[in-house]
């Protein structure tokens, strides 16, 4: 029995009860199968029921207005009308209990450690390929395998400095890794901003819940950058952005500001005397560490794409000589494509000698005949993804697809089998979201952020994305998703 307390909110009106709240056949974060709130959520559940619906909606509107004012916006590709939008913000936080977080955290540390060892290996001795744990072609023919990086050893032998690992809960409530993002994972600024706004929106609720703080992320990030510097004296670190029209530009500004480092564009940097320098008002100044938020292929027109205007000519040679650190290291993309993902459990076993703490989602690779057949026969049940796709684009969600879409994907898979993988459609978990009518369940995922420097640090919680369209499973902001604050309880 869900306790519905008929208290009135401070502004009058009816309380928002959870009556009629019905998780759509999946694990619900707040309620157990018998309809009672889970232990970690009890407090929050009680407190939410004390508010009137209008009061909560007013708070939500105020939170979103604050985001517009602060310019916490993202740019939508291919949307000419309003290019700057805020991500819809759901003021109901997502909770993770202390012990559950501890196991998630250890799983993430293990995974990132293994992925880093893997990248170092494939650009080094390639033992894992020689031992035939992973098909060589999957690595060596990947578009993200950079020949230029073979034999290269980055500062402190760290490649995967910043990872965003996408996690979902399956129908049984078990956390599973859905995707590893090792190239330029974004979203961490929303974690910090969401927290900032939540403290203003529901201060009293927040106060009593003993939420683990997240505000020191920029400090940890800066410490990590400094750890990689080739020079002993106070290092000069910069954040390299593609510029103002990039979808994550807000985040680039935010992180540069919070770390007190310069935000530079490619045209601000030059290579001079074997060093990377930035153009300042007093001439050229040496740069030691570049947290780059542009993709590998745009980094250096002399080595990668020659038409790139975003990068710096000669940068890679300086990097190869160890005179500048690049974060993340070029070439890490080899470990985060969706085909390689299927082998990550093997990778973990191979390098750590232990069983993976966090399981994968079962994955079929269309490049292999048997698996392809399985995919084609079960398109209506599976989620099909492009190996190098991201942002929720180029996906087929079988159960929600039309016959025409399935035919189109079948054709594409036959033509380019190496470009597709498929996974069973997961009943990913739901959590209560505030919508106009009150609380309704919406599907959520979680992107924790992991920093690899002197040690491995996992930001408590991470970005919870929520599919705000009723019934939708796609949480990407470019596809109508929103965000929530994630509260790890101490």
């Amino acid at each position: 029995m869900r306790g519905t307390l008929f208290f009135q909110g401070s502004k009058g009106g009816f309380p928002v009860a959870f009556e009629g709240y019905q998780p759509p056949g999946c694990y619900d974060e707040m309620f157990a199968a018998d309809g009672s709130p889970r232990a970690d959520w009890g407090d929050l559940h009680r407190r939410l029921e004390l508010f009137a619906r209008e009061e909560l909606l007013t708070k939500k509107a105020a939170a979103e207005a604050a985001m517009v004012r602060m310019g916490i916006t993202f740019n939508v590709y291919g949307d000419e009308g309003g290019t700057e939008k805020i991500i819809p913000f759901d003021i109901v936080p997502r909770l993770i209990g202390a012990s559950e977080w501890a196991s998630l955290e250890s799983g993430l540390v293990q995974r990132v450690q293994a992925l880093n060892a893997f990248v170092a290996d494939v650009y080094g001795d390639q033992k894992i390929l020689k031992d035939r744990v992973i098909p060589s072609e999957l690595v060596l023919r990947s578009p993200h395998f950079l020949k230029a990086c073979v034999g290269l050893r980055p500062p402190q032998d760290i490649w995967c400095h910043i990872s965003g690992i996408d996690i979902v809960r399956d129908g049984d409530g078990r956390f599973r890794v859905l995707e590893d993002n090792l190239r330029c994972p974004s979203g961490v600024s929303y974690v910090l901003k969401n927290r900032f706004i939540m403290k203003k929106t529901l201060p009293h609720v927040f106060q009593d819940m003993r939420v683990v703080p997240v505000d020191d992320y920029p400090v940890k990030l800066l410490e990590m950058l400094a750890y990689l510097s080739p020079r002993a004296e106070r290092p000069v670190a910069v954040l390299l952005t593609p510029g103002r029209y990039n979808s994550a530009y807000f985040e680039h500004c935010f992180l540069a500001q919070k770390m007190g480092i310069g935000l530079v564009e490619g045209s601000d940097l030059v290579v001079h005397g074997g060093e990377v320098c930035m153009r300042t008002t007093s001439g050229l100044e040496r740069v030691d560490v570049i947290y780059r938020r542009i993709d590998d292929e745009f980094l250096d027109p002399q080595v990668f794409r020659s038409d790139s205007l975003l990068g710096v000519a000669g940068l890679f040679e300086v990097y190869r000589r160890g005179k500048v650190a690049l974060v993340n290291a070029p070439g890490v993309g080899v470990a985060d494509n969706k085909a390689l993902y299927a082998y990550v459990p093997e990778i973990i076993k191979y390098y750590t000698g232990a069983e993976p703490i966090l399981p994968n989602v079962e994955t079929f690779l269309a490049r292999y005949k048997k698996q392809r057949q399985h995919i084609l026969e079960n398109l209506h049940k599976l989620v099909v993804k492009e190996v190098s796709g991201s942002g929720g684009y180029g996906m087929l969600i079988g159960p929600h697809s039309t016959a025409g879409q399935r035919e189109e994907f079948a054709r594409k898979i036959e033509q380019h089998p190496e470009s597709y993988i498929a996974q069973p459609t997961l009943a990913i978990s739901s959590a209560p979201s505030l919508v106009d009518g009150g609380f309704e369940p919406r599907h959520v995922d979680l992107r924790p952020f992991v920093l690899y420097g002197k040690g491995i640090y996992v930001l408590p919680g991470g970005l919870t994305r929520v599919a705000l369209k009723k019934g939708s499973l796609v949480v990407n902001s470019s596809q109508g998703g929103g965000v929530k604050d994630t509260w790890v309880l101490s």
Partner: protein
Amino acid sequence: MLSRTANAIYWIARYLERAENAARFIDVNCNLSLDLPPWTPPQWLPLVMTTGDDRWFMKKYKQANEENVVSFLLFDAEYGNSVISCIERVRELALTVREVFSLEIFEAINSFHLQLKSARKQARKEATDRWLGETRRFSHHLSGCMNATMTHDEAWHFFQLGAYLERAEKTSRIIDVKYFYLLPSPEYVDSALDNLHYYSLLNSTSGLEMYLRKWGLVNPLNVIDFLILERSFPRAVLFCVLRAMESLQAITGMPGMSSPNQAEQRLGLIHDDLNSAKADAIIAKGLHEFIDHLQLAINDVHSSIHGCFFDIPLPEGTDGTRPAEPRDSAH
């Protein structure tokens, strides 16, 4: 600091000051036109002349009446120096250097830009007055935020430098245009109309009360002295030049800078000229020539600042792309 960042901050200051000045000019002229005797047609053309963009204006609007001039200066998005265009640029530039500003500063810029944009859609005559006031308030609010929430470091000094040079130029321009357009013949001098015009000239700079406190009666010589040579009135040319010099010296005094440079030398010359100038001598030699010379000299300072800080030539054998820079759209 990064050249691109310094350049952007310098231009944010200039566009902000430009927007504020445009708003002041409109405001004063609206006021003045209400006070003019019925047989005198309201003077809207001089306002357009102040901008230096009169040709562009005539091509688009044909006639310099109140409605046209106000929409030209306040809400015309096609005109690069209208209030709305200046604020648009301030915001665009602020976005490119957002990490330098405190949150208060960025929020202020972002909010005002959003408000102005939505006001434009519903622009009506009654709204004009409100937005003129809002623009001035915004400019003051932002300068206040800059002073109170930002370290007075290199970035801050580039902001000051841009703001004061822009203001020095705008004040000199308004004196020039008002003086020669409104008072073409000596017999007008000392007429009631004449006084009204001096009042409006002083008002354009918010300086009427300050002037009266210092000089009492309005006379042309003292007005020129007050608006050009006054050392303590914040919109007077000499005051602006002094503040700009302080900031420029603070910048060149920072580690790694070479001093004196061309920008300092050129600004120093302007200062020396103004410092030794006397109002009666200026008028005797020709006010227009004096101001013309002053404006050219200020333009030279702008280009020296550009060469000394924003676009330093790269050493031999270094290959770099040239960053895109904001530049003046008009004049």
